Each structure stands twice: as C-alpha cells, then as structure tokens.
C-alpha cells in the first residue's frame, strides 16, 4: 500500500444551522491527483479552506503525513501549498518581489535561482519585473503556479485554479500541471465543477453534492457517470 499524504475523517462545517460540509471522509496517496468535483455550493472550497486552517471545522479530523494538522500546523504548512483562481498575489509589487516574500517565508534555498527556474518553467520569466497588477489573468495563474511550487510541496490543494481563464489557456495550464507532476512525486487535490478538466488530470474523482460525498470513481468509469453528474448539477441549479 502506498503512503497516505492526507487523511480526512468526519470533516464537517456548519454555518449556523446550514451544513456546508457534512461528515466527509477521504484520503490521498503520495503521487495521486484527486479531483473534488461538484456543482457550485457543494462544499468544495469550504473543504479546502479547512484543510488549510483558514476555516475552523465544526467537527472531524485532518491528518497530513500521518500527523494531526492541529498539532503540527507549521510543519504541515511547510510541506504543502495552495493555488486558487480566487486568491491572487500582492498587486502593488512585482512578480519577483511577491515570490521573494514567499521564498523567505518558506525558507527556500537558493531562492533567486529557484524563482527564475519556476517562472521559466511556466513561461513567465520575462514578466519577472512587472507589477503583478499589470499582468493578465492567464499570466497571473502561471505566476501563482510558481508560488504554489516554490517550497517543493508534497501536496498542493488547488481550488478551481482555472476558473475565469479562456479555454485555450486552461488547456495550457493543465498541461503544465501534468508535466510538472510527471517529473516528481506530487499529490494534488483539485476542485472543479468542470467534469472534463477533472477527467483529464485526475487519478480518482470524488463527487460532492450538498456537502456530502455522493460517489467516488476513476476516470475510466467517468463516461458512465456523466449522467449522474449532469443530474446533480441540474438538481442544484433548480433549487
């Protein structure tokens, strides 16, 4: 059996009476890309935020690398990272300055070299001295990818990283993630409401709806699940 990098048991988030995440269990193995798929409001972001310690769970346990997240917060944060279309970097400073701040925070060795290497990999090295404010959405996503890989994370939590991007740029970003991952043992938790995206890059998919896990599948079974997914999405949009 392969090593588990993340194990979630009974994770629950209540906002007042409303249950956004309802007693979910799942785990991620080293090197595995797991998709968290579900319509808007399913509880995907809330789950990721709890995993990052930004949102306090109402109940349940989170263990990274076999360690209780509550007790080993900083050690865990040093070994994971996060990427989301909704969180950008500091607008008023340059790309390089932004990455330098995080390189210091993550204690990255030879940070100058590392920053250049990552920016180059994601094809945005030429934007190094641009103000973050002045670069396009697609370019931001690539810079954010560089930030997310700065500390050589063992696990990256990605919350709809491609939202608000044009389809051809989405394709490019996904290729980059795939290529990056091929070169190392990297685990990813990838949330999306887009079945095709998840189908393409994930080893395993968890369907979420109304805060609950309703199904788990591997991509080869996904075609047969298209209808299930459409049904869930339709039900949600009708409410």
């Amino acid at each position, binding site marked *: 059996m392969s090593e588990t990098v993340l194990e979630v048991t009974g994770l629950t988030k209540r*906002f007042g009476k409303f249950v956004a995440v309802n007693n979910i269990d799942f785990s991620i193995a080293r090197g595995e890309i797991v998709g968290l798929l579900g319509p808007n409001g399913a509880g995907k*972001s809330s789950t990721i*935020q709890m995993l990052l*310690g*930004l949102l306090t769970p109402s109940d349940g346990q989170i263990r990274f690398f076999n360690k209780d997240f509550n007790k080993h917060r900083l050690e865990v944060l*040093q070994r994971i990272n996060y990427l989301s279309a909704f969180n950008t970097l500091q607008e*008023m400073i340059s790309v390089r300055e932004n990455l330098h701040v995080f390189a*210091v*925070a993550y204690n990255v060795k030879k940070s100058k070299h590392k920053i250049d290497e990552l920016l180059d990999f994601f094809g945005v090295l030429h934007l190094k001295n641009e103000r973050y404010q002045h670069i396009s959405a697609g370019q931001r996503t690539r810079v954010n990818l560089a930030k997310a890989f700065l500390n050589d994370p063992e696990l990256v939590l990605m919350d709809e990283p491609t939202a608000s991007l044009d389809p051809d740029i989405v394709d490019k970003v996904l290729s980059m993630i795939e290529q990056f991952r091929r070169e190392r043992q990297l685990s990813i938790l990838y949330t999306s409401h887009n079945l095709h995206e998840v189908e393409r890059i994930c080893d395993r998919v968890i369907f979420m709806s109304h805060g609950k896990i309703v199904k788990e599948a591997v991509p080869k079974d996904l075609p047969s699940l298209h209808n299930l997914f459409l049904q869930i999405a339709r039900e949600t949009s009708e409410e």
Partner: protein
Amino acid sequence: MKWRNIRAVLLQDLYLTKGSMEVIFDVFVFTSINILLFGFISRYLSQGGNKGFEAQSLLVAVIFWEVIRITQYSTSVSSMWNVWSHNLSNMFIAPIRVGEYFCAHVMTAVIKSLFIFVNALIIARYVFHVSVLRLGAFPVLFSYINMVIFSVAIGVVLIGLVFQYGTQIQVLTWATIYAIEPLCAVFFPVGVLPAVIQPVAYLFPVTYFFEWLRALQAGASYEVHKIILATALNLVYLLAGCYIFSRQLAAAKRSGQIVRNDL
C-alpha cells in the same frame, strides 16, 4: 517567534512602501503637510501678543498626533493591502505564525512613525524654530513610546473587526482614530471638554501624555503618579487589544468571514 518569518512579512511591507504612491502619500506626504499647516497656524496665533507657548503647543501636539495616526494606520492597513489584493490567504497558509505576521506589521509601523517623528522634529526646529527636545529627552521619548503602544492596541482591534465583520466596515481602519482625536485632549486641555465627557477623556492613556507635554511647555509641573497610571493603563490596553484580536481572529475563522474577505 522566528526572525525569518518576520523578515518575510517585513520584506513585503518594504516592497509595498517602495512601490506604491498611496503608502508614500498616506504616510509621508500628508504627515509633512499637516506639520507645516499646524506650524503656520501656531505662528499666526502667536502674533499679536498672544502667549507663545499655547500657540506652539499646537505644533508639538500635532507631531505626537501624527505618530498615533501613522502607527495605528500602518498596523491595521498593512493587512488591508493583502485583503485588497486577495493575498491574505496566501500569507496565512505560509508557515508563519499570526503573531509573527503582526509583529512584522507593528515593526513597520514603528519604523514609519519614527521616520515621520524625526522628520517632524526637524521641520519644527528649522522651519518654525520650535525645539521639541527642549521639553526634555525623557518626556519626549517616553511620550512617543506610549503613543506607539496605544496606537498598536487600537490598530490590532480595528483590523480584527474587519476580519470578523468584513470589508464593508474597512473605513474604520483609517477613520476611527479621528473619532478618538477630540477625546484625547490632543490640542486642548481636558478642562475644555464638557464636564460629562471629561471622565471619558481620562480613559485614554494618551490623554495624560498630551496633558504632560502641555504642562512642560507652560513650565508647570505634572504629577508623576498620573504618568505611571497612564503607562500602566496603556499596557493594559495593549494586552487587552492582543487578546481581543485573538478572539476576533478565531471568530472570523469559525464564521468563514476571513476567507470571504479574501475572495
């Protein structure tokens, strides 16, 4: 507390201060303009046989007031820059303690306030021929330190309010201090305030320091026990401020408001 973590946040503050006209104007330009403005007002008032010290005391008062304003502003608004950029989550999921993050913002606030304080002393001395240091190095330095402590205490609670209740109340992080200003007897003795408000003024530790500075300028004495009381009160404010902030942060993480601000 790790120096490396504090350094990361300091670095961000440094880049931000260097790179944004807003920060440079808010902190350095407007402060200098205010000092000049009050310098001219006091020069005008001291013409025509008025007692010089009362007019001059306005200039001394505004210098210390700017220390309060800038320290509080910088303590709170440093985080707002991260909120406005949707970067606060990135900062909070880096392996940095919240204490380290805020320690860095307080350090930046102190550096900025020290810079504008020295700048103001120079303007007062060479443009208006008012030497603040003649009041004594100890009273000046001790008052400065207390103004800073007070502003940090207020600053953390104000940013805590935004974490807890959202960016719709962000105006509080830079405007609240103006509501406190008349109550702290910055420019006039507490005795000028209506009798019912006077006890409220003495709830603010900095009131005592403004009174002390005025007494020194008038050549009058000021009771030592009041200074001790004010310093103790100030430390209570600081501890209470940090405690309240920790509760606000916990509440914001429970309600999810802190992430909502950042989306």
